[in-house]
């Protein structure tokens, strides 16, 4: 038996809108496999997104979904989780949505350590709106708004998440499809705010401006830059130049927000749940 992805897809929703070779579809498949591995119940799982190509993902998934305002997935998802702490809450979105307009929501969700999983598809660009640079566009790479190269240094999303207080941080790539579901499974199982960054490709607005001749070249780049954390331990700083670590980068046990909030309710004389 082949894996039945369509059991988690809303009837009639395929083919999806993403461009040929866009990695968002690979990430969505990884997320579906993770949901299946964990046996997540559709009625007890919420998928929440902001706006962008990546943020279109919840529209395809047959469970409780919220497609909200640009950058605001974390705010809406926090509301869902606070009202229904028993639900599994998964946030999805792009680098622009999560680290530009939504950067503030992102860092505070990390700081609170609320038990949700955030899958961030980092294709280094605002795909949906035609390729404006984002906070992750690499230095001197081109976007529609930086035709001569982007003078800004870029965010390292994983470091940002760790610095802000997320208690599980992992990174994968769209090329390493096999690993995506495993990282998401671990992230969901972790009690606290989990961030899974997937390095992704946008051939349409990023690739063609940055000398990638094809989707295959973009995939090959992801293949070449990724180094598993274990392998990196045996490599010299020179060997690691230009590489990106993949796998589980950080994990820590810390008080979780819904549990802490419950304590406040009880102190204030409210009932236990």
């Amino acid at each position, binding site marked *: 038996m*082949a894996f039945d*992805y*369509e059991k988690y897809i809303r009837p009639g929703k395929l*083919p999806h809108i993403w461009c*040929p*070779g866009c990695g968002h*579809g690979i990430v969505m498949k990884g997320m579906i496999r993770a949901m299946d591995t964990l046996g997540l119940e559709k009625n007890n799982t919420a998928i929440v997104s902001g706006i962008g190509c990546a943020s279109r993902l919840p529209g395809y998934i047959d469970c409780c979904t919220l497609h909200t305002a640009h950058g605001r997935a974390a705010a809406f998802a926090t509301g869902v989780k606070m009202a229904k702490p028993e639900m599994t809450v998964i946030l999805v979105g792009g680098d622009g949505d999560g680290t530009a307009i939504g950067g503030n929501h992102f860092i505070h969700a990390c700081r609170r350590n609320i038990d949700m999983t955030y899958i961030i598809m980092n294709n280094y660009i605002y795909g949906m709106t035609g390729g404006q640079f984002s906070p992750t566009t690499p230095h001197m790479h081109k976007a529609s708004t930086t035709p001569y190269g982007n003078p800004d240094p870029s965010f390292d999303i994983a470091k940002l998440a760790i610095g802000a207080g997320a208690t599980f941080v992992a990174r994968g790539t769209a090329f390493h499809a096999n690993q995506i579901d495993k990282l998401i499974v671990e992230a969901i199982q972790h009690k606290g705010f989990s961030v899974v960054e997937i390095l992704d490709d946008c051939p349409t607005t990023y690739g063609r401006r940055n000398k990638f001749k*094809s*989707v295959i070249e973009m*995939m090959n780049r992801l293949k070449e830059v990724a180094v598993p954390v274990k392998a990196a331990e045996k490599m010299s700083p020179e060997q690691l130049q230009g590489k990106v670590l993949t796998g589980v980068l950080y994990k820590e046990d810390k008080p979780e927000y819904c549990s802490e909030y419950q304590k406040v309710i009880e102190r204030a004389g409210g009932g236990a749940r």
Partner: protein
Amino acid sequence: MENKLPTIEITERYCKGCHICVEFCPKQVLEMKGFVVSVKNLEACIKCMQCELRCPDFAIKVIP
């Protein structure tokens, strides 16, 4: 291990012709036929599932 040939199911309506499955198949089992993918050499398939895992469009399934 049994030697039964797998079935490779292609949903042409979903395939966007991105070439990912063709390029990264370790055994050159697949090829592009016009806009969509097709099976060229089923006998060579080692059922590694990489084509199915990497297809962004739910268009290719390997039934081992």
